């Protein structure tokens, strides 16, 4: 083998603390090295050309570049050696920047270490083999999980680009949290007026298949060809027949069901259409509340339904499909604020969440848009808002800022004044966080034009006094003075958390999630919608709490990534996968047992059982390789011999 070594100065990034020239000279002593030089910027155009020229001039069959991390420029240099006619895998990198020059100041030690890393790379390269990708066809269909505003945006963008889209929503209607909002900040425009048409677009788009009241049951396969099974939950209404006329909901005798859409503000019927603009506008039965199920007799809806759509015998249904890419847009839930004893832990009916307040404000809500407090239906005059309930609170394990509460609280204070002109709003806050276009102006307007009284401090206690609630807090801008406010209604700006089931879904999708259950993006800055699992993208609050504009932006961004991925007819497989040496395999099946991807199968070779890797399914983790006692399974590009060569290069002296 004829190896060329290139030691990059990276300007002074490496050259400052590594003697690159001497590393290049030393490299001549390593086996098979026939050419070695230092270069100012190996990744630059002239730097790459230098490598290409050297390959041709010195007839090199392999190249080592010592520079930055391979996570940065390995693809760059692989393309370069490929341009010079070598196989892209006849290339190794030594990381002498992140792992050497940037973490140590002793030039002698750094230079020595850099040379050893080069020796290690050379030792591995000597055992590298040409590897070739295989191309495989992709399924031009995208699965979007979650029909909130982020998922809707992603679905529409993908569908408009000509892709088939399958949108799966857990609730009986799409719309997500945004559909529950009365108005949106900072424009105070009607939420359903802007979201409604988008929801209708989803329903009418020829490329979108919508599964509401459905969840992702399982995911297998890999980028370009995922196999997805969706569980359509029994709604006990045949949606093909249901016209959404709503007759059943009017006549249903069971009227005490928990109203999920209205956040439990007032009860609802056992058979429901969640809200007037629901998409799909179909009825579904809440089993636990329905007399037919709890008492065994009723059947009113079945009798009255003009199309005979009611089916008490309906079962969950599993639907399987192939998709090429997946967008997760599963949103968030409000955290359970009843952990706060000081706010009454749920004992006081007039202490409500911000989302419940949205429903009281909404014209389509249970009170028809008249703000009536839950306890006695009276119109409140003094409304107290408490911010950061379940946000920025280390004591309950929620140290993060939910990001949108400052803004929606300001909006709700404005709406309070609009609905009840003689009302007074008080807002207890920690800091007002309002970065965003027109956001800070908005929080000033609520104070200056709408007279909301902002008190900087935490609330230590809420207690009832007559038909009022006394909110005791502190005003830190008034020297820590205690403040008691007599409130008719208290609205808690409850923070968000990863939606229920997020870790389980993450595990199905094989993506990472943080300690709070939010999905991990591929890179916090440069890959905000990708995940480390190829073909799976993120949109909206499932990745971290965010407001509507950011969710929509991310929905479009995730769609763009999915569209980009599926714009190709064929994808190239990564050839760094496991291979079985049939001669050496004894068919013990241990590799099959441990493979996380079911990528190894048993085959019968002339009466003998052998393992065989399914090339398109293998992800290249190498677990099988480490498991096989006789080393008959080897992970290409990370074989036992290659790793052993690296170890030996480091340990021999």
């Amino acid at each position, binding site marked *: 083998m004829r190896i060329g070594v290139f030691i990059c100065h990276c300007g002074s990034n490496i050259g400052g603390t590594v003697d690159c020239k001497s590393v290049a000279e030393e490299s001549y002593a390593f086996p098979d090295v026939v050419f070695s030089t230092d270069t100012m910027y190996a990744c630059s155009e002239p730097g790459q050309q230098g490598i290409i020229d050297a390959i041709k001039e010195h007839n090199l069959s392999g190249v080592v570049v010592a520079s930055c991390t391979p996570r940065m420029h390995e693809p760059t240099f692989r393309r370069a050696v490929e341009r010079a006619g070598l196989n892209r895998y006849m290339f190794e990198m030594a990381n002498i920047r992140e792992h050497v020059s940037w973490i140590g100041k002793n030039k002698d030690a750094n230079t020595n270490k850099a040379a050893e890393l080069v020796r290690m790379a050379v030792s591995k390269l000597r055992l590298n083999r040409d590897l070739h990708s295989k191309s495989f066809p992709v399924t031009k269909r995208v699965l979007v999980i979650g029909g909130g505003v982020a998922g809707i945006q992603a679905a529409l963008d993908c569908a408009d680009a000509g892709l088939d889209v399958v949108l799966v929503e857990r609730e009986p209607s799409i719309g997500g949290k945004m559909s529950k909002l009365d108005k949106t900040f900072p424009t105070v425009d009607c939420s359903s007026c802007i979201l409604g048409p988008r929801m209708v677009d989803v329903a009418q788009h020829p490329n979108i298949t919508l599964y509401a009241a459905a969840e992702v049951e399982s995911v297998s396969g890999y980028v370009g060809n995922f196999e997805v099974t969706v569980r359509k939950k029994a709604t006990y209404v045949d949606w093909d027949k249901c016209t959404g006329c709503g007759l059943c909901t009017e006549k249903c005798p069971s009227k005490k069901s928990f109203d999920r859409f209205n956040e439990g503000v007032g009860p609802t019927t056992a058979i429901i259409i969640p809200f007037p603009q629901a998409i799909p506008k179909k009825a579904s039965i809440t089993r636990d509340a329905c007399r037919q199920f709890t008492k065994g007799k009723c059947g009113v809806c079945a009798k009255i339904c003009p199309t005979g759509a009611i089916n008490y015998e309906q079962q969950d249904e599993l639907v399987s499909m192939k998709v090429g890419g997946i967008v997760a847009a599963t949103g968030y839930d409000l955290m359970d604020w009843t952990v706060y004893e000081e706010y009454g832990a749920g004992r006081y009916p007039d202490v409500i969440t911000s989302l419940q307040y949205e429903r009281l404000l909404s014209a389509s809500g249970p009170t028809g848009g008249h703000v009536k407090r839950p306890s006695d239906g009276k119109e409140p005059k003094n409304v107290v808002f408490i911010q950061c309930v379940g946000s920025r609170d280390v004591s309950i394990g929620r140290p993060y800022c939910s990001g949108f509460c400052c803004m929606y609280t300001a909006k709700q204070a404005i709406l309070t004044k609009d609905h009840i002109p003689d009302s007074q709003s008080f807002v207890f806050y920690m800091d007002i966080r309002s970065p965003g276009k027109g956001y800070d102006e908005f929080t000033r307007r609520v104070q200056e034009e709408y007279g909301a009284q902002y008190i900087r401090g935490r609330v230590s206690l809420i207690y009832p006094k007559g038909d009022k609630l006394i909110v005791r807090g502190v005003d830190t801008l008034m020297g820590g003075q205690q403040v008691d406010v007599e409130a008719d209604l208290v609205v808690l700006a409850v923070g968000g958390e990863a939606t229920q089931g997020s870790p389980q879904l993450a595990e199905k999708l094989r993506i990472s999630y943080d300690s709070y259950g939010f999905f991990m993006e591929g890179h916090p800055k440069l890959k905000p919608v990708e995940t480390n699992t190829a073909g799976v993208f993120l949109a909206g609050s499932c990745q971290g709490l965010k407001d509507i504009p950011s969710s929509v932006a991310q929905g479009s961004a995730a769609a763009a990534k999915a569209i980009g991925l599926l714009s190709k007819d064929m994808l190239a497989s990564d050839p760094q996968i496991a291979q079985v040496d049939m001669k050496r395999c004894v068919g013990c099946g241990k590799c099959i047992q441990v493979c996380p991807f079911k990528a190894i199968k048993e085959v019968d070779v002339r009466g003998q059982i052998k393992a065989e890797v399914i090339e398109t399914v293998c992800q290249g983790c190498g677990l099988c390789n480490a498991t096989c006692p006789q*080393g008959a399974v080897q992970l290409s590009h990370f074989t036992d011999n290659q790793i052993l060569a690296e170890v030996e290069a480091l340990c021999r002296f």
Partner: protein
Amino acid sequence: MGMQKELQAAIKAILPEVDCVIGWGSGPDPLHGAPLFMRSEDDANRFASGFFAVNNPALFLPEYKGKKVAVVVKGCDARSVGQLLSEGLIKREEVSLIGFPCQGVVDHDKVAAALGEKGEMGEVTAVLEEGDALVLTLRGETVRLNKADVTAEKCMRCQYPNAHIADTFVGEKREPVATADDFADLAVFEAMSLEERQAFWEKEMSRCIRCYACRNACPLCVCRDHCVATSRDPSWLTQADSVKDKLFFQVIHATHLAGRCTGCGECQRACPVGIPVLLLKRSLARSVEKLFAYRAGIDEGTPPLLTFTLEEPTIKERSW
């Protein structure tokens, strides 16, 4: 000799159903038994169980995959069979087990040591078992040995003398010698400092002749001709006669047996230069029992290193 006759009857009863019955017969001298492959009643008449039926017949089972065989097993042999079964290396329906209450087997090293000046094992012309004693004839004299003094170490801590899996069990089950493994043998070894232990292995392994008898005697070393010890790709070992390579082979052997080794001790018994190679496997078995409450060959389910749990309460991860 009632046991011997009963076992022979059981063997004869199963002969028509199987290709072969694996057990023991007499060996090259009165102190040694040897594996016996029985295909006829005549063969069965040569079957000999007892104190000298040392070999682990489970060793041969993977070779018979696809054929139906019966095997006579001591308690420890049955553990090996159990482990082969739980790894799917043999099929339950292809193996019929004949168990019996094992009274322990001989350790030839101990016999040689006990004979000392009196002569070599090869000079023994007759052996009689008289209760707790062995009566040896050599150089025209009789030598009485206490059986307990020449019994294998593994028998002294035996928890499973009665084959725990058996299709036919001959005789009355006996009480186990011990109720738990206290790993006292390891405690003796561990009285040495780390430096002493390293020196110990250096000295022991310098005697190794790389014959791989230890591996070849192991019923769970199913790689056979494809062992990494001698393969070029992957090339884990050089062929150099260095302590490093020889010790590394023992580490490979032991590591490949982690969570699988049942402690039958055949590796150590097979070693022609008397290196205590079982120690490494015992150490791993202790870890595996402690960490995963798993005793190879006894406990059912996936061997612990081929599976995992999300939380590992017994693994104390370093806090840093």
